[in-house]
């Protein structure tokens, strides 16, 4: 029996049938990889290699000595072509290491990572939150001082439409997911390990449940509703506890990792494998939608070609899921650690561009849909009027930017954008949650 979901949320067509049945397939090695030196939230790494230098698969090529950071490794044996700035999916130009891979690659071999303890190994392996948050995982393996984490939750909801990479991973490597969860739970000294999976992935839930036999892991099937995979909504669905305003999830006794991240942690700890590749769902208007194991630094244009190229008319290409992912203005950007999907939308699939002049007709749909119980119309209206204090009174800072409000708004008001602007203005004024 699925538990009650959180209040609010939406049911967009999930479109997962396009790729859910496709087993994870290794994407071809492209002509060149453009590996950004920063692929996480935190301090930027410095490239540690020089043009012309030979690199080995798994060798660190960008490092920084900061707590909240994650080193970057070469995904292949090859030669560094250049170090230069390159555009990323986020629309920024960042230092990147361009590598020309050797013709022959042995994917079962890599330079093992080293570290004195578990957190150090995970840190050296460059593992970050693979659900899209890209927060360095090692930081979350050290128990927080203020709070006691009683429950480790693995997030296998994958509530974004179109994406199936976590689904396939749970199906094909459930033991890695469970193993990663066990490692995290042990290192935090938590009591419980719960793996939350949406009900539209029953087969994955079954596979994980089987793999969890003989371990302490519990599998919980949750109703399919967007954004079930949002951290606070997931914690509520499982623990019936609200993360208090402005606090970390640990304040509710919980700590959440994505299932892909858990598998990466297990690989780092058990076989000393650094994070050099990830599963990416390439789907929508491409000839061969599927789930690909992609070397980090592969250009999106190459990846789309590997998936058979565009099929039909294309309007938007999104890095990640269509509810929260940034749209790509250029396909000449590399796949990074946080990129769970490349979703190609054509006319008819994609929303019409929003029109700022459209009025709010006060239908209340946005507040019904808001999983944070906010009143997005009010924040949007006050943001339009530049009344930033009012946006704060309406708790703009609690918005998780899930996009549910804008999805349902009949007049397509750019609510998320307005709230983001309000947040930025409040941050500039020094207002903190």
């Amino acid at each position: 029996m699925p538990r009650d979901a959180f209040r609010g949320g939406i049911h967009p067509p999930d479109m997962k049938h396009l790729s859910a049945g496709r087993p994870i397939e290794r994407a071809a090695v492209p002509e060149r990889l453009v590996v950004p030196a920063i692929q996480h939230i935190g301090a930027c790494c410095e490239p540690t290699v020089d043009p012309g230098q030979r690199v080995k698969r798994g060798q660190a090529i960008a490092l920084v000595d900061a707590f909240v950071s994650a080193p970057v490794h070469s995904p292949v044996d090859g030669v560094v072509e250049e170090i230069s700035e390159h555009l990323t999916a986020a629309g920024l130009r960042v230092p990147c290491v361009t590598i020309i891979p050797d013709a022959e690659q042995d994917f079962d071999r890599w330079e093992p990572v080293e570290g004195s303890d578990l957190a150090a190994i995970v840190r050296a392996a460059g593992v970050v939150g693979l659900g899209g948050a890209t927060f360095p995982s090692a930081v979350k393996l050290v128990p927080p001082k203020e709070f006691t984490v009683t429950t480790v939750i693995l997030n296998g909801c994958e509530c974004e439409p179109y994406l199936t990479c976590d689904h396939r991973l749970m199906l094909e490597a459930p033991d890695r997911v469970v193993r990663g969860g066990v490692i995290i739970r042990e290192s935090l000294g938590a009591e419980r390990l719960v793996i939350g999976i949406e009900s539209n992935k029953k087969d994955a839930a079954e596979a994980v449940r089987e793999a969890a036999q003989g371990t302490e892991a519990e599998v919980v099937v949750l109703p399919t509703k967007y954004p079930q995979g949002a951290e606070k909504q997931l914690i509520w669905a499982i623990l019936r506890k609200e993360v208090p305003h402005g606090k970390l999830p640990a304040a509710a006794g919980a700590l959440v990792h994505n299932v892909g991240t858990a598998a990466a942690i297990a690989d780092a700890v058990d076989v000393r494998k650094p994070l050099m590749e990830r599963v990416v769902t390439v789907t929508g208007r491409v000839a061969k939608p599927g789930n690909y194991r992609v070397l980090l630094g592969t250009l999106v244009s190459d990846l789309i070609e590997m998936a058979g190229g565009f099929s039909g008319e294309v309007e938007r290409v999104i890095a990640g899921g269509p509810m929260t992912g940034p749209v790509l203005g250029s396909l000449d950007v590399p796949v990074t650690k946080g990129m769970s999907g490349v979703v190609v939308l054509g006319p008819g699939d994609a929303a019409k561009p929003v029109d700022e002049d459209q009025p709010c007709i006060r239908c209340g749909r946005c507040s019904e849909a808001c999983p944070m119980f906010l009143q997005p119309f009010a924040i949007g209206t006050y943001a339009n009027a530049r009344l930033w204090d009012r946006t704060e009174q309406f708790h703009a800072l609690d918005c998780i930017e899930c996009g549910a409000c804008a999805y349902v708004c009949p007049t397509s008001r750019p609510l998320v954008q307005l709230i983001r602007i309000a947040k930025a203005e409040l941050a500039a004024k020094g207002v903190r949650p």
Partner: protein
Amino acid sequence: MSDTGQERRLVVAVPPHIHGPESCRSIMLWVVGALAPAAAWSMVQMGTPAVVTYAVCIGTALASEAAWNALAKRPQTITDGSALVTGLLLAMSLPPLTPWWISAVGAAVAIVLGKMVFGGLGWNLFNPALVGRAFVLLSWGGVLSKLPSKGWYRTIDVAGSGSLDAISGATRLAIAAAVRMAKGGYGFDLAAQYRPLLLRNLEGSLGEVSAALLIAGGLVLIWKRIIDWRIPVGYVGAMALLSWGFGSDPIFNVLAGGVLLGAFFMATDYVSSPMTRNARLVYGIGCGVFNAVGRFFGSMPESTTFAILFMNGLAPLLDRIFVPRTFGWVKRDG
């Protein structure tokens, strides 16, 4: 790239990149669709005068919105469907034999004074159709009440009271009230009126021809989540309860007059009603209470209009009182 030409045409926009099925127009068309059976039935029953009233109201509503936009040099908005709904609702609140020029003035006032002067759709405080109707009632209420109709009351024996002929064109409701006033009680069986009120009622306004069709349309809107059930349920519930409390027949009082049209289609207008669940329930109940009080104690010919307009005025206040608690907050501002 397999097709590099595509790249140049990529749309750059902010997430979310997908959108739900509802648009302003689709919602308005749902409302029109829900009203359509009742409107069509009224045209079948009332014939040409009804068709004229609908045509004039809808036509004038669209034309005045188009004209206002043109004069104010605003983008054209007549395709958003809201003027269509306003015109249709206004027509359904008028008797079929309403002189066409009254219908036209009502529709123009509804759009211009009820909506456009506030800044257009979304900015008006009151339901535009009801603004138009109130204007018509206050200006030509006497004219409307003297319109001839196919009076059913001639066919029943109201305790030999020939004087009722004076109220030509009066609704069952007006007659019930008049009889009650004259005799201190109902001289005829209200329960016998359920059937005609539900299926075929030729007195009163165009929207009163069939309560059953209105209810069906309203239920469709609730089922499709176009409207929130809290408003009609609060409204009808309060109306029925108070009618019963005032010693009348609750079912008759819900079916007669503009209550159903008001509860399902007028009070639920998004712009002029509150936005949060609790506020909507209170608002619906408020509409029902004022409607009942107006009907039993007031001298207003049609208390539905003024009950809803009054609650429209309170909607912003209700929204303020019932701000929901944000997730993660113990209480608001806590």
